[in-house]
């Protein structure tokens, strides 16, 4: 029963005697793990992680992938901290195939989001990838410390 949390901390604006303002930006998911966080120039927060809560995970209408199997899958969410915490989740999607996935990091460059991780799914959604088939098995990941990686452009 693990949840994801995201905080925005403003160390510059102190209010009161010695306190600092913290905002809880994100309603917590269930059985989720956060693996990466990035912030773009507009202040939007991009997070990625793994989730098993396929029924309760919040997915937005414009999601790249709005449903997933019961395995562990990648999620990618965008949070607008300027909005109310209940509407701050401006984008959220699954990322995965029938098998399981795990992300390792997220980055933003020139308006594009890059997510890196490993997948054990043969039907992982790929677009314009240089490697179109999965090259290793999950066991190989663990025994040989070899990780097949994919990168997907979301925006």
């Amino acid at each position, binding site marked *: 029963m693990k949840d994801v949390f*995201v905080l925005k901390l*403003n*160390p510059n604006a102190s209010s*009161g005697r010695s306190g600092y303002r*913290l905002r*809880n930006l994100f309603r917590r998911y269930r059985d989720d793990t956060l693996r990466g966080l990035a*912030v773009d120039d507009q202040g939007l927060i991009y*997070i990625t992680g793994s989730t098993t809560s396929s029924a309760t995970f919040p997915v937005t209408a414009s999601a790249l992938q709005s449903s997933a199997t019961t395995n562990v899958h990648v999620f990618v969410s965008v949070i607008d901290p300027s909005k109310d915490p209940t509407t701050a989740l401006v984008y959220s999607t699954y990322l995965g195939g029938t098998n399981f996935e795990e992300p390792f990091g997220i980055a933003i460059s020139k308006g594009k989001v890059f997510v890196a991780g490993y997948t054990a799914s043969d039907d992982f959604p790929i677009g314009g990838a240089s490697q179109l088939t999965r090259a290793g098995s999950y066991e190989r990941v663990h025994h040989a410390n070899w990780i097949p990686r994919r990168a997907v452009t979301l925006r």
Partner: protein
Amino acid sequence: MRLVFALPFCLVAFAAPPDRPAVSKSALTLLSRAPMQFEKLEKDQWIGHGPALSIASRSRHPDPHRRSLRPRGVRRRAQGRPLRSHRAGSPRHSVFLRRWRAPAARVIPPAAVRTCIPESTWSITVRARTSSTISRSRRAPMRRASPALSRRRRSETSERWRTGADSGSHQLGQRPPVVYQRRGAHELVAIESRYSLDGDGAVRLKLGDYDRSEKLIVDPVIAYTAYLAGSASDIATACVVDSKGFVYIGGTTNSTDLDWAGTEIIIRPPIRA
């Protein structure tokens, strides 16, 4: 400089950072990295690992092993031999702290420990990436820490790195590192620290008296600390700082009462004087 070497201080050689425009870097290390730890390597040599901002990996003194400063019983090093360079990882740097006086292991009585929070800052001027000069911008005298001082110090956290308006040059100011030692399980003893400017442009760190038998912790980046915790286990796995100084923390929690919406979190200075 003569005066500096005559004082019973320990010195660290700092090099001027050539071009370090990052406002966010220092704040990023604030929460995501461990403080600088100094370990005793040899009889007269200490090594520190940590997120220092500007580091030289060897002593800048023309003759750091001259006889008058060498402790008794310590062999003379070969002239010009660089100190060993340790790099724990690519984002980290190493600092050498060379003890110039003979080691005198003594325990300072609590009444004699000065608990000062240094307020002096140095500004480093970088001109068109050709040469680096360091000028003293503001150097307030050492003062005893008071609640008012602590508040002002925290409010100046965002001004640790300032960008000047001069054409082709940037002014970077860095607060002296927090230096402390542990006494017992829960007590921290603050040690005086301030920068001094060497003749060749190297910035050195001067420390006050400290207990030489205990580990010395020099932390150049920590500005404040806070406990962000619920009732169960909480793990922060990501930390990002944007250009405005906002700190974004993401992680995973098992706590059900983790709700910081609009709450005031008391952020403590790292060492309470």
